[in-house]
């Protein structure tokens, strides 16, 4: 394995990551933490959670 392949691999990994973060608006720390709520029982969710839609708003026809 040459150094070029290693560098290309790192650039590719970062490129894919940046593309996902830029293109997917749901890929934000607060929103991700909300999806993990209650999964890792002993790990506190850091940062304020974004307010979700209220039950009343969701129950509107």
């Amino acid at each position, binding site marked *: 394995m040459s150094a070029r392949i290693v560098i290309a691999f790192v650039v590719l990994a970062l490129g894919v*990551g940046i593309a996902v973060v830029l293109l997917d608006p749901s890929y934000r*720390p607060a929103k991700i933490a909300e999806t993990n709520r209650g999964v*890792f*029982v002993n790990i506190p969710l850091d940062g304020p959670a974004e307010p979700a839609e209220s039950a009343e708003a969701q129950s509107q026809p």
Partner: protein
Amino acid sequence: MRRLVFQAYCFVVGVVMGKIHPLTPDRVPLLYSLFVILLVGSLLGFVRARRSSFPVAVAVALFGMSCFFLGWGRYSASFLLNDPGHISNFTSASLKDRASVEGVIVTDPEVFAERVTFTLSPIRARRAGRDDEYQDISGGRVEVTVRRAAKEWYQELGRSDAYGWRIRINAPILSPPGPANPRGFSYREFLNDQDIYGVQTIAVAWGSPPPIEILDRGEGFFLTEWALSIKEKILAVYVRTIPYPQSTFLAGVTLGVRSTLENTQCIVPGHGALILDECRVAGVTHVLAVSGQHVTILSGVLLAILSSFRIPLRVQAPIIILVLLLFLIITGMPPSAMRATLMNSLTIFFLAMSRGTFQSSLMFGIAEAAVVVLFINPKNIVQPAFTLSFAAVLSLGLISWPLEKILCRLKGALFAYSAGCVALATLICTKPFYDAIDRAGLLGPIGLLAVGGAFWVRNRFPSDTVWPDLAYEKMPIFLRIFIVAQGAILIGMMFPLSSFYFGRMSLAGPYANLIAIPLTGVVVPLGLLAGLVGMIPGVGTFLALILNATNDCLVKLFFLITHASTVLFPFPFIENLTVNRLFLGDQDHLLERIAPAVREVIRGLRHHMDEEEAGLFPVLERTLAEQDAARATPASAPCHVDETMTVNRVVQEFPRTKPVFDQLFVSVPMEGCACLDEVAWRHGMEAQELLKQLEGVIASCGCAT
């Protein structure tokens, strides 16, 4: 080096001898005396061989024999339970025999949705009604389970901080249950092999005395404390940078946290299967445990990266060993990772420092790692984790090179024929075709026919006459390495040991692993890097977010491949591969033989259930009548839901409440069977608060009527 490998295997054979024929405790000193005498004799032999013509082989043989007796003695000594202070003497079979045990928590508490489990190293114990004072404990450990019902203790002890605490448990010390069926899995043996001889379960938070008393919130071994704190920090980074359920997978493969994966469902909509089950069927469960594979992948990646920058191997070795040690610390130092790190470090060290080949260094590393692991706990010899990981590495060391030589002979028509056979075998292994085969015994003759066909093709069409450009040797090197490694592991470990230990064999394994292992090779280093980078204040979270965004895509790909494997391939029961099952096996006869006995058992069970029901139904009817009478009295305020109702029942009775659960990210298909108080607790809110919200929606929509 060969002599040291020889003595290591003599030690392992001695441990095996101890397993087959353990000696009584009074004979153990005799074995140790033999070890010392033979060791001194062999050392004198080596000295004389240097000075005179004394044969070295005799000295080597004496050395090997001394190690054999050491292994035998070590295993026999591990069963010294006749000490009155051993914890096994405090266990009971009855829940009425209460006891108090004071000890130190020596493992990172494992947190599940319903329980927390950890190992307690007892210092002293007292049996209620039998012992006046506490008695010191000389050996053995206790497995403690704290149920979720004991809320305060579940939360208090469900943290890595609890490692090293000195606590007192006031509960019966039960003997672990033995096998449910003859020759079946024995939880008692499983725990005994880990030096655990008693189990204590805490199901309530109250009592007199309280079930758990924390005596000292001290700290344990500093390195483990540090490791656990890093592990928690990395988990905190994952929680913020990779969404569920990919986060559970990443935590499993990088940090060995498998408890969160237990109830995680497949990401493909419309399939209720759990990811863990799908991994089992696809034969990729091994990637979820931090074991030899992860350490080897990490070593391989580091070796490849450092070699690409032309750094000499002697400089690479200490760097790689240091990184492996850091990885070991980050993963919380589980026994499997410790074993793998030891094995890999020894192999890399001797590869760099000696003039031997990679194969000889690998064999030396395996042998010495086995000695260290078995010397610490000889009972590991029968543990699947130990045998599977050593068998995998031994297969790589012993089978991969001969297999490569055989495969290199595949050229021209023979290569095309072999490729066709592999394609045909794949087709036979897929669900519609495999299900159509009613006699498993046909597979053996088909295999023999294929091998015979290979010889015919080789003789009929010499390699230089037909398709001379087709050859195994001309395939890309990375693909060849992968095929050889997979083949070696399949022949040496998966086929014989997987069927022996688990009774099932994944036919999808060879194909799913073709993609799953390289994927893990990328996911593990990226995930660890993201976890470490994420700890940097400020910009760290953003960098970790980018790295884990890539990981998110890769983990989803892994899930999809695993799911596709379960759809395409069956997961048959295979006890052990024997000549009978391969060539003569006809399970119908076996079923015919056992059917009358099974019918008799079912008849007996029905009769037993009838008797139980006859006694139980009057009691239930009386209780229901009392409840109906209580309901008949007017209530102060109408309550439509209570905390004991399940999510499914609430959604079925009051469909308009579903948005409340959606708002709380409660997955109704996944958590539907859980009670409201449990769901509320899981999602960080009070049960009353949830009930209030639900009642509000029910009242507003008028669906209560």
